[in-house]
């Protein structure tokens, strides 16, 4: 039952993702590879990060809608999105009623001192998977280090990192990388 699997998988992702933005990437990357890896390879998720950066809306909702639509059409998209939204919705309703107790809770504070750095380590891990796909599209090998494509990817990455740290808008960065990718492709260098 793909609909139930989509709902439950994204329910779990929504319930165990602390912090905004890319905090959900590690768990999502892993679960998608595990369950729907044949239909949605890691590269597709990386591509979709670019789509999500260039469209409005939270990353989590965009991602759930996209993967749900790929695996189960409109109803699949609905199930996945409902799943990712439901845990925060319910938890905030509870917290909104007893905010003061929640704020003073030493258990919540204690868990957060572990969760905040954990997210950094986990995202670093997810980035390694993305990096392998970028630099070694055919899988890691020392042979690949001798290809032109490897150095061109490294060059795009380095230039875009400098632009990103200089606070250039993500959409501009995505546009420049796309143009570079097309130019390199038609020059026959990938």
């Amino acid at each position, binding site marked *: 039952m793909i609909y139930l699997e989509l709902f439950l998988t994204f329910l779990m992702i*929504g319930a165990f993702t602390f912090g905004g*933005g*890319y905090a959900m990437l590690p768990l999502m990357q*892993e679960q998608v590879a595990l369950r729907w890896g044949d239909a949605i390879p890691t590269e597709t998720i990386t*591509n979709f*990060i*670019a789509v*999500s*950066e260039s469209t*409005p*809306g*939270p*990353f989590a*909702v965009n991602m759930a*809608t*996209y993967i749900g639509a790929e695996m189960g059409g*409109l109803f699949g*998209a609905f199930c996945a999105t409902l799943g*990712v*939204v439901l*845990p*925060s*919705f319910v*938890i*905030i*309703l509870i917290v909104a009623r007893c*905010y003061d107790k*929640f704020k003073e809770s030493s258990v*919540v*504070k*204690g*868990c*957060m*001192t*572990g*969760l905040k*750095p*954990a997210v*950094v*380590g*986990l995202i670093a891990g997810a*980035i*390694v998977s993305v990096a392998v796909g970028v630099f070694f599209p055919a899988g890691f090998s020392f042979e690949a280090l001798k290809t032109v494509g490897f150095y061109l990817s*490294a060059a*795009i*990455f380095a230039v*875009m*990192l400098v632009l990103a740290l200089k606070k250039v808008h993500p*959409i501009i*960065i*995505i546009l*420049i*990388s*796309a*143009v*570079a990718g*097309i130019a390199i*492709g*038609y020059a026959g260098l*990938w």
Partner: protein
Amino acid sequence: MKNRYKDLWKVFATFFKIGAFTFGGGYAMIPLIQKEAVEKNGWVTDDDILEIIAIAESTPGPIAINSATFVGYRTCGVLGSAAATLGVVLPSFILIYAISFVLRQFQELKAVQYAFQGIRAGVLALLCKALWGMYKKNKKNWASYTVMAGAFLLTAVLDVSVLPVIIGCAVFGLVTAKLMERKVQK
């Protein structure tokens, strides 16, 4: 009763607008929520916004959903929460559903494949920048570095599943926080 429906509609419409015009999501949404919910409609105060950020940081789920649910609740109770959350989600849902068709149509094109090959290198840079920002916000002490390194090694090198690592790190944080508390008390 009629006023109640009007309020609900207004909450829905406001969050629909916020959802439709925030690129990147998450914290990018906070200034817009502040403008719409505090300045324009007076649903919540500036202090509430700070509260929302604090809550969103220590509860699971996307910040956009957390803050929509919270502001909605303050305005019209549970129904308000539902209206705000539906409003903030709907624009992405519609747009991304449409985009998934377009992507499927064009993904076979050579130019699109070349473009995405370049884009993935750019996305890697964006992710590294986001990681750097998150790293800087963390406390710089041994416990924090241990958890970072541990979570990375366990998932990326030793191939442990992400979920048990998340739970383990929460427990580790709880235990070390309690131990430090006891030390201070002594």
